[in-house]
């Protein structure tokens, strides 16, 4: 392994060693959502004609878990290394800012995909889910995880204390994921909130991902792919610039 591969490996090993907390926990949480919302709302809510509500929930929950865990991986790894001071071991190495970016975001993608796949596999035991457009599933999963891993990288660099990171997670990431149509179609919202939802990049990630399963969606999957791709490029540009300038790491 060369330098950046080692950093990627170390970042993956870091969450793998505490997989009970980083993988099993989020999968269980998603299962509880599925059981409770699915059970309570199955007979009352119909989003798409051919799709049961429980089946409708599965891709949204898988994507929500994937996004939250990708964010959590890069952000918590960085803030912990900063607070404990062991980031110095990486700062002393010849790794460039590109290497840092690829390794931290790469590990976040791996964790997001593992948790997302875990949610999906276990949900498949309860309900039947189809795969209308598998390539869209893969594309949105990988890009969504990369986008949130990159956002986590930025938040991890910015935050100096754990509570700042928790604030970012509770006041930005959580509302945006919940208000993105995980539990509903935005067409069921009043016009004003439908309009607002169109400014939420999380909506496009979940809507496009869901299209991969059912072949139906609220907006065109190509529009979603473009929005997610553009958002990814934007945050990656910001993250690379912060890493290059040594923002809050190299004074």
């Amino acid at each position, binding site marked *: 392994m060369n330098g950046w591969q080692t950093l990627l490996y170390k970042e993956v090993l870091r969450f793998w060693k505490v997989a009970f907390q980083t993988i099993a926990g989020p999968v269980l949480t998603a299962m509880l959502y599925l059981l409770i919302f699915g059970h309570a709302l199955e007979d009352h809510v119909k989003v798409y004609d051919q799709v049961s509500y429980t089946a409708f929930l599965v891709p949204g929950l898988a994507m929500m878990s994937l996004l939250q865990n990708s964010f959590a991986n890069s952000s918590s790894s960085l803030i912990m290394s900063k607070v404990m*001071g062991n980031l*110095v*071991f990486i700062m002393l190495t010849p790794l460039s800012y590109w290497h840092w970016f690829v390794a931290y975001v790469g590990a976040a993608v791996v964790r997001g995909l593992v948790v997302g796949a875990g949610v999906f596999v276990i949900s498949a035991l309860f309900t039947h889910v189809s795969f209308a457009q598998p390539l869209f599933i893969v594309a949105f999963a990988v890009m969504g995880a990369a986008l949130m891993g990159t956002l986590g990288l930025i938040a991890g660099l910015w935050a100096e204390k754990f509570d700042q990171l928790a604030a970012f997670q509770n006041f930005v990431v959580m509302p945006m994921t919940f208000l993105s149509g995980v539990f509903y179609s935005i067409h069921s919202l009043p016009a004003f909130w439908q309009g607002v939802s169109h400014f939420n990049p999380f909506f496009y990630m979940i809507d496009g991902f869901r299209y991969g399963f059912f072949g139906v969606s609220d907006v065109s999957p190509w529009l979603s792919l473009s929005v997610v791709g553009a958002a990814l490029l934007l945050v990656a540009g910001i993250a690379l610039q912060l890493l290059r300038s*040594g923002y809050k790491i*190299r004074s």
Partner: protein
Amino acid sequence: MLAISFQSISKAYSSPKGPPGTTFLAVDNVSLGIEEGEFFGLLGPNGAGKTTMISMLAGLTRPTSGSASVLGHDVQKDFAAARRRLGVVPQELVFDPFFNVREALRIQSGYFGVKNNDAWIDELLESLGLTDKADANMRQLSGGMKRRVLVAQALVHKPPVIVLDEPTAGVDVELRQTLWQFIAKLNKQGHTVLLTTHYLEEAEALCGRIAMLKSGRIVALDHTSTLLKAASSNVLRFKVDGDLPPALAAQARVTGRIVQFPAHDALEIEHFLAAVRESGLVAQDVEIRKADLEDVFLDVMQKHSGQAATEGVTV
């Protein structure tokens, strides 16, 4: 070629005191060259700028002006080549709680692209007395053991230039011995060593050359032997019950009851003892010893203490 070179390097931090925009110069226009194979000591009181100098060399901190290089490689423009040649033992006792000792060393090797490094890792573990801790998690190690791992991590990519930032602060005698034997061996094999320490006897025993830093400036730079020669060659040491008159105390170093007075010859010694007697005090346990690095250090620091209050602060 110089192993380590600082060229007119400065580092300004924004000052917590004073009006906004006030800066504090932690390192003030320092130029210093360290030859390959040297064992070099960087001494100075807390806040003198030692760690800032090392941080700039390691690329952890960026200089405000000037530059630094490792074996001819600029630490900013050519940072990858510079860092490959540099091993740094940080001052803080930091560790990654997710890994055991061997994992930590393997990962650190990997960052530098060093493959199949187990033979060297085993040698490092053996030399630093860590072999039986190889599979222990970092969290379970005592402070001294963590310090040894830090040394091993710094050396894992076989850097020709080694920097140790106060590696023996708060470390027991046994580890200090183990560590110094090991570092001295590496130095004999040709590694350049830059050391900062508070233990002056260590610097005296190990370092061929010494720079003394105060308020971000070099106030003394010479071979250790020359520095020792230049200082007063003898020290008169005794105990008194009571306070010395201020005029005498100003010339001496007083630590509780112990008084130490730098003296060049017998006449000075006689003169000083007479002055003590005249003040009504009795000198007990009188001895005369050779001056050591601590005397040189205190002497140099005292000479520059007048400037310290006004220097280093610019608006």
